[in-house]
């Protein structure tokens, strides 16, 4: 598979702030790639570099095989972008803006435009100032989905959308994927990411801390285990990957790195298992672990980043 986006070792500073500190990102052609990270991690900065709006200090970036800075104008013919906070001109109607963006990108599909306006329940005759936040997002979303492009870059595109519209959005993304388009989706809505994304990249403080499919990521996190044993537990505390061990008589509660789960189960069954509950990590736990500040986790993070 060819890469739609390849980024390696990207650095970008604004004065003393290091927004990007050696960021890596690979997006395969035709996939929906989730782009995650806490606020201020550098997601929007990365996206602006990919759009040629910012120039990276160092590192390499290629979008659809070209240099996003030098070939920006040609490249943008094949890219549609939706920012997280759409600002409109107060005296232009939504319909005018949709058509303007479409034409500036080299034309848009009239039928699809009409269909999208209907699906998103957007009134295209209202002027920019009178749209609510969600409706402003819809203007940009309709313009993006109605244009014939290879890559969609969506930066928290659904902020302000109601749950019904969120669902319309998810269906649109699924349709775009079926047409073979590539989508880079930055989002904080975990259900949206879980539903839509083939792979995700998690960044923190301007660096990529994790990339992979959700299944891969799950594998890296901890599973909670609660067990009631027939005999006293034995040697659990010495096993690698065991955390928060809590033994009360024959009752055991612990967290274990999911890839070390097998050894723990062996040890438990040596003591005889009466009952066992094992809870896989939720998506929230998965992300929270990556989002949390590096209190005592520094080593762990750099180890993961080095993989």
């Amino acid at each position, binding site marked *: 598979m060819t890469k739609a986006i390849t980024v390696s070792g990207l650095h970008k500073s604004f004065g003393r702030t290091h927004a990007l500190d050696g960021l890596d990102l690979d997006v395969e052609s035709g996939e929906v790639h989730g782009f995650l990270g806490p606020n201020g991690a550098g997601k929007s900065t990365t996206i602006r570099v990919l759009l040629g709006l910012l120039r990276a200090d160092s590192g390499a970036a290629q979008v659809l095989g070209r240099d996003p800075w030098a070939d920006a104008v040609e490249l943008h013919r094949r890219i549609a972008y939706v920012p997280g906070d759409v600002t409109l001109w107060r005296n232009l109607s939504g319909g005018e803006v949709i058509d303007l963006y479409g034409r*500036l990108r080299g034309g848009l599909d009239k039928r699809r435009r009409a269909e999208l306006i209907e699906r998103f329940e957007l009134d295209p005759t209202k002027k920019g100032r009178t749209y609510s936040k969600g409706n402003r997002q819809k203007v940009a979303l309709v313009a993006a989905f109605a244009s014939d492009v290879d890559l969609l*870059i969506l930066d928290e595109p659904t902020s302000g959308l109601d749950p019904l519209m969120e669902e319309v959005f998810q269906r649109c993304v699924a349709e775009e994927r079926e047409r073979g388009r590539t989508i880079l989706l930055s989002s904080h809505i975990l259900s949206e990411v879980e539903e839509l994304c083939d792979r995700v990249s998690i960044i923190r403080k301007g660096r990529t801390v994790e990339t992979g499919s959700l299944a891969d990521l799950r594998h890296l996190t901890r599973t909670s285990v609660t067990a009631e044993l027939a005999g006293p537990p034995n040697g659990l505390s010495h096993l690698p990957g065991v955390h928060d061990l809590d033994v009360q008589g024959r009752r055991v509660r612990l967290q274990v790195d999911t890839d070390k789960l097998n050894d723990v189960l062996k040890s438990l069954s040596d003591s005889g298992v009466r009952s066992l509950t094992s809870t896989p990590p939720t998506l929230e736990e998965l992300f929270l672990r990556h989002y949390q500040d590096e209190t005592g986790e520094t080593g762990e993070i750099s180890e993961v980043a080095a993989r």
Partner: protein
Amino acid sequence: MTAATFAVRGTGSRQLAGTGTLLRFALRRDRAMIPIWVGVNALMVLSMPNTLKGLYDTAAQRADLLRQMETNASLRAMTGPVFDDSLGALTAWRAGVYAGALAAVMSLLIVVRHTRDEEESGRQEMISAGMVGRRAPLTAALLTAAVANAVLALLVAGGLAGQGAGGALAFGLGIAGVGMVFATMAAIVAQFTESARLARGLTAGLLGTAFVLRAAGDSATDDGSSVLTWVSPIGWLENLRAFADERWWVLLLFAGAAVVQGAVAYELAGRRDVGMSFLPSRPGPAEGRLATAGALAWRLQRGSVLGWSIGFLLAGVVYGGMTEGAADLVGDNDNAREIFQRMGGQSGLTDAFLAAMVGMLGLVAALYIVASVLRLHGEETSGRAEPVLANSVGRLRWAAGHLFVAFGGSVLLMLLAALGLALGYGKSAGPILAACLVQLPAIWVIGGLAVLLHGVSPRVATAAWGVAGAVLLIGWIGPALDVPQAVLDVSPFGHLPKLPGGEMEWGAVSVLTGVAVVLVGAGLAGLRRRDVISS
């Protein structure tokens, strides 16, 4: 009465809750802007006695001036009549109109900035969601303007006290009075428009109207007694007759107008929704025809181009109509002639007057070009440029649309000024046209500077306003203040040939055009290299 309607009414004091905090907040935000406006205005006024002393040193010269002002309608139209030959009265005569106008501009900017601007940007919502009364934001804005005008009045009254304490106090209060009349007028206008830009433009248009009414009234009578003068708040300032047996009751006009307008604004503000206006926007087309970045730039700027065009045409007609008479007056006074010659050149006095007026319009056109070029900056900082540039639009193409409106618009304005002057004067259309067009290289240098600042160092792009303001001040009062040539030379307008009447200097014109081209080129080169600012 239902509980709901009862609850909405509230009590008077709660409507003003939070005013003190908002006032301190506004003064904090304006801590640079207000001192600059007040300081420049006060300096202009306080430097007058010295200058005028040099120009009209002997009693004979002053008597001469008074006699001329009585007989010459055109010069009265520019400055208003003189009521006495004391230095104080001469200062009030020479500086009054401009000090009042500057105070008015300052006040309208302050009020719109803290009312409609806040609502349009959406910031007002968060403020109003706090313990803030419905009328507190407007009150705080008007109080901010009042503080600025009060400081200005104090500085003028204190600084001119040597010329007569009563006159100085009246003059200071009169200038502040003009300020407050336009502050409250802006407060009303801001209730009707949804855009701060439009509120500022409309109020400035009203100020221009007041200016023209006073000019027309003063050219009709020699003692400010025309109805037209009495209709204009700027006319009140002259009819206050500071340093010439002050008519203190005229101050009541300012107070009355400010109170009535303030009350109207209050009533309107209490009746409407936050962020909304009494002129709600109508629906637009469901499908757009805009297809290029250039068309978008024109669409965004066409309203202001239209407003400026009307202003330039009208100003041309008014100044053109004054030209014939102006020459008569100036002809008799060596000093006044000297001023005009410094502003307008050596040749015949009609030509000198025309040249001075054209030069004045050229300076104002420099403000237009800065405003127009900085639309690029506004588009960028508001975040609206980003999605446009994320389309298949190069930065140069994006900038070119706005720059075409800015630089082409300056040509249009000067053509309309020429048309107006020729219509008003009724002859020498050719020389007038040449004089107007020859201003363009200097206007473009200022525009080029704005392009350079925006392209290379967008954080300080608004400094272009400072440059335009400095050039305007140098051109406006520099010649009257006997400023050294070195200072006048800083302004590109100082290097222009004085047309009509003077020699055409192709060298200077070509050099200025070349400088403008280089500035624009360097600015665009910078724009291509730098990061797009994100909001």
